[in-house]
């Protein structure tokens, strides 16, 4: 997965892409291209998903039965494979989301520090 500034490639934690895909699918069934496009648009072009990452992630999610898939017709009548969130997937997503939020909050707290909280004195 790339960010637009190709000089600073940001590696994502594993499972992050999975969470993003699940979140996107909350809004309804979507095919692969649609999911990639949605992530790009809704992150304001910060996150660009390439297919080396997307499809393995989709296969992983499908294997875990968090999403289900089936062929259908797209909005412009193209045949495409649509993915839907399952109940199991919904539960997993909720868990992961709260974990992510906790992590993000903790990260933010430290990154925003003005000064250090009480630190034990180092003995000489």
């Amino acid at each position: 997965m790339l960010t637009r500034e190709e000089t600073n490639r940001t590696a994502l934690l594993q499972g992050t892409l999975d969470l993003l895909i699940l979140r996107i699918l909350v809004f309804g069934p979507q095919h692969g291209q649609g999911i990639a496009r949605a992530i790009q648009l809704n992150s304001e072009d910060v996150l660009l998903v390439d297919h080396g990452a997307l499809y393995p992630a989709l296969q992983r999610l499908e294997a875990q039965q968090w999403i289900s898939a089936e062929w259908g017709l797209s909005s412009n009548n193209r045949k495409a494979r649509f993915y839907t969130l399952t109940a199991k997937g919904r539960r997993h997503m909720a868990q992961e989301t709260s974990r992510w939020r906790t992590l993000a909050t903790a990260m933010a707290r430290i990154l925003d520090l003005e000064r250090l909280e009480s630190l034990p004195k180092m003995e000489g």
Partner: protein
Amino acid sequence: MFDRRRRPQSDFSEELQAHLALEADRLRAAGLSEDQAQRAARQNLGNLTISGERFYESSRWLWLTQFTEDARYALRRLRKTPAFSITAILTLALGIGATTAIFTLVHAILLKSLPVSNPGQLYRVGKEPQCCVWALYSQGKEFTLVSYELYRHFRNNTKGFEELAAFQAGGTSLGVRREHGENAAETYFGEFVSGNYFSMFGIGAYAGRTLTVADDRPGAPPAAIMSYRVWQQKYGLDPSVIGAAFNINDKPFTVVGVTPPGFYGDTLRNTPPDFFLPLTTEPVVRGDSSMLQQVDRHWLHMIGRVRAGQTGASIQAQMRVELHQWLQSHLGDMGANDRSRLSQQTLYLSPGGAGITSMRQEYERWLQILMMVSGFVLLIVCANVANLMLLRGMERRQQTSLSMALGARPMRLVRQALTESLVLSLLGGAAGLAVAFGGTRLILHFAFQTITASPISASPSLPVLFFAFGISLLTGVAFGIAPAWMATRVDPVEALRGVNRATRRSGSLPRKTLVILQAALSLVLLSASGLLTETLRNLEHQNFGFEQNGRTVVNIDPVLAGHKPEQLEWLYGRVHDSLLSIPGVSSVAACLYSPQSGDGWNELIYVAGRPAPGPTENNLSWIDRVTPGYFEIIGNPIVKGRPLSEQDTAASRHVAVINEAFARRFFQNENPIGKYFGNAEIRSAGEYEIVGVARDARYLTNRLEEPVEPIFFVPEAQSVVFADAGNKAGEVRSHFLHDIIVRMQPGAKLSEEQVRRTLAGVDPNMPVMRMQSLTEQVAGNFSQQRLIAQLTSLFGILALVLASIGLYGVTAYTVGSRTNEIGVRMALGADRVRVVALILRGAVALIAFGLLLGVPLTLAAGRFLGTQLYGISQSDPLIITAAILVLALSALIAAVIPALKASSISPMQALRAE
């Protein structure tokens, strides 16, 4: 393919295509042209091929799918090169088959347990099985046999055994006839067993019932158990046999049951027992030879099942105490020797799951040697096939380089090559099973010639199949690893540039190493076969001390025919006269044991006028009882005095003839003629007068490297009266002579039919047990040595052929790839001789290294053979030199052919070839 719910590759490709299309649509909608949209879409999508590959590789069963593909590919390739494939498979079949055949025997003889329940709980008394009767109260290193009284003492007192059973050591011949419907008795092999024998083993009857403790009581109706083999072969599984009346040695018995098929008793032997009789019927069956009531005649083995929680060590300790108790209780009956040895008497318990292991002991060494030999052959076979595979790999170098240039990962190629090797070796293994089956049958036929009903089967059992499969896998990996790895050490550029442009074979080091290995192993096998063949020759041509030609040994059993001791003289007289009447027969004599018959009888000797021998003195001698004319017939010269003759009758004084070893042991430098000695009891010390000394002759079949043992000969017509009941019975038994020696006039032949008819005329109830020439009897004792020597020689020649082929292959390949170089050399003035020398130099170097490696291995092998050699040293320089010469010669021939071809290359042709 194995993942049913798995999406097919095509479905995923379709999805990717759809993605592409949708992305192109979006870009077109954003204003790009058709072309630009397509290109941008493709760019955004990334490498489709890699996505597809990743999808493919995410399959859990990938390795299996790939393996199946590789296997199919390998089969296709093998089919395309039938010459290579057939050669490789046949070679592998030979190697794997030979090893599996030996393993079948090893498993049956060395590894298998008795077919009884829970063999792990069984313990037997004795570490080294003895057979078949020990007398008195001391038994050398350990008590292995017991008398009936001693058995009962152990049985009643050793609480650690759940069941302790006893059975006759060695078994006995029985004459069996069904009461109604059969007139003539047939001889079978049988065994006396205690009442709890079958319950101790946990064996139930296949039909009817087994013996119980109730049958083993004096006065109980005599019951017998028949083996399944006899029930099937002689009586056709006739159910009326169960409960039918039979005559065993002319005494009435009832057959109450049949053992399960596959049960062969307590000992793995060539002829398993066909009848099991209770111990208490022994006096009835054996009459005057009975040993049941003799407390100091030990003729029973013991095996017991231990109680849960008991250890062998604790029971052993307790039994030792009980042994000493029993010995103490008989202190008054012991002679001085036994009393002085009393404190040394001990016994050992050993695991009894394999029964009495005499066959194991006898054959263990041979099977070990055979296993090593076949292992060597397998190694040589592997080396050969590896060489072939390397060659194949070389030929495919261009293709391999191409694959690697196109992106094939080396691991994948290695796996492909290994799969091919495994397929080859599994095919070879399957073919090898057929070889193994045939080989085992052949070995069984030649090694155990006297088998009537061997419990060893040649058909592959499950462990044997597993072994063959395992060995095939190992073999495949062994000869496949090197070529597989070599296949990938290819510099693609170098290979694509072209072949035949080398002055030295850079890649042929592994091949050369293999040839060196083959040469070394061949040398070892050749030397070993030389040593073993020479041993056999020495054994067969040693100075036996008697004449073998023109003599036939006819083996009878007068006990079976129910003869009484009083009738024996008449019997043997009649046998002598009627056999003499056959045309061509020049003389006849009978003896208790003929030389090299495999059996013997020994006694304690007391010389008249001397004190009783001390505990360290060896006063043992063997004994043989003979009819007049024996020494002349057997060709054993008398060196002093006279042989036994007709003048020695029941009325004349008791005489004996001794051999030189007897004179040396008991009379040292004195003249033994006219001196007196006796056996068994010191009060009989003046019993026999020595009238002659015979030349030492080899009667016994073991310990051939030791000097001949003392033996004395007494006449059939004379009998000693002993006081002790056991000695009395022994004396009676010794008059039942087994072997009749018939000497033919030169050129005359004796037919078995004639002999049987003649003896049936004397006594129809006394069948001929066995008839063979004395030469056959002697040679029969060396059948294992012969087999080992023959097999090792066969494998040695095979190894030599394979090594020569290997050398030929390497040399031919060298010539082939150095064609350009040779052409240049010849164009620059080298003549034919120099070219030949050039090529031969390489070959000679290989053989030299092979010898360097092989000679120390040969010496080690000689040490391993060690005790199996006879009359020859372990590192006999003659044999080793001969082996080296043979190897060098065949190597020379193998290398000279391509060398000559090389020298006949025309330079123009060579330079032109590419």
